[in-house]
């Protein structure tokens, strides 16, 4: 049973090892000629505007909360979807009630304009 997870473990080891290897090779063999321009924080090739760690607008918080809520919704869907055919009509109605209650909040968020990025 645990052998099923072996591919994930191998992927984890390879990705971690590869990342470490690339950083190590770059640090060991790469030439170092720092200039002021190179030491600046990278901001898509432009001159950086302000410090790198500035305060974020509260809008990001809203996006993160919305993401969590829909994420949890999906996690509830998954076990239901696996046994969907055995549950029959009753399970379908239950899920419709679940979705309907969430739809109320969704419509509220939509009407309020929380889903738009101004």
């Amino acid at each position, binding site marked *: *049973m*645990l052998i*099923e*997870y072996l591919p994930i473990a191998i992927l984890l080891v390879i990705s971690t090892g590869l990342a470490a290897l690339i950083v190590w090779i770059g640090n060991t063999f790469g030439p170092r000629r720092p200039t002021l321009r190179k030491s600046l924080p990278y901001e898509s090739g432009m001159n950086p505007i302000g*410090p790198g*760690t*500035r*305060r*974020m607008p*509260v*809008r*990001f*918080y*809203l996006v*993160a*909360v*919305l*993401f*969590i*809520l829909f*994420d*949890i*919704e*999906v*996690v*509830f869907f*998954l*076990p*239901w*979807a*696996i*046994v*969907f055919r*055995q*549950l029959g009509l*009753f*399970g379908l109605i*239950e*899920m419709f*009630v*679940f*979705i309907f*209650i*969430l739809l*109320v*909040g*969704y419509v*509220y*968020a939509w009407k*309020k*304009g*929380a889903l738009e990025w*101004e």
Partner: protein
Amino acid sequence: MTALQIIFLITAVITLGAAAMVVITRNLVHAALWLIMTFFGISVLYVLLNAGFLAVAQVVIYIGAISILMIFAIMLTRRVQQDFGPQTNAAWPWALVIAAALFGGLIWIFSGWGNFFTQAPVMGERADPLRQLGMALVSPEQYVIPFEVASVMLTAALIGAIMVAWERK
């Protein structure tokens, strides 16, 4: 020692070490990153317990969403830019003492409970926890009410977040 025990010990050490770093480190962003490491260790523990769905849910919800929310919440605060001085909190021995006392107290209380030392029954090889969970979620004898109440709670959280964070134009 079996391979399972060795994997468990490594995972437990990494999880506990990362959890300790969450409270020891001074930089809140670093603490959030260590917390992700802890969540990941817990997800591996779920895998060891043959609870694959919980492991996936742990990665998707806790690592994917909640830690991102925490990092955003940290970045909303004003003092995040300060990254000077030692990286460990000076009061960490006190935190250690208090946490150890709490842990000991909890163990002491729980050890009075009769079933404390009984092992959980082992699931059969053929058992499908995800299928059982799906059946239990919508069956009236089991968890249908909590399931529906969860959607009410999610809606309340959604509306609450909009109330808190929505900016009037």
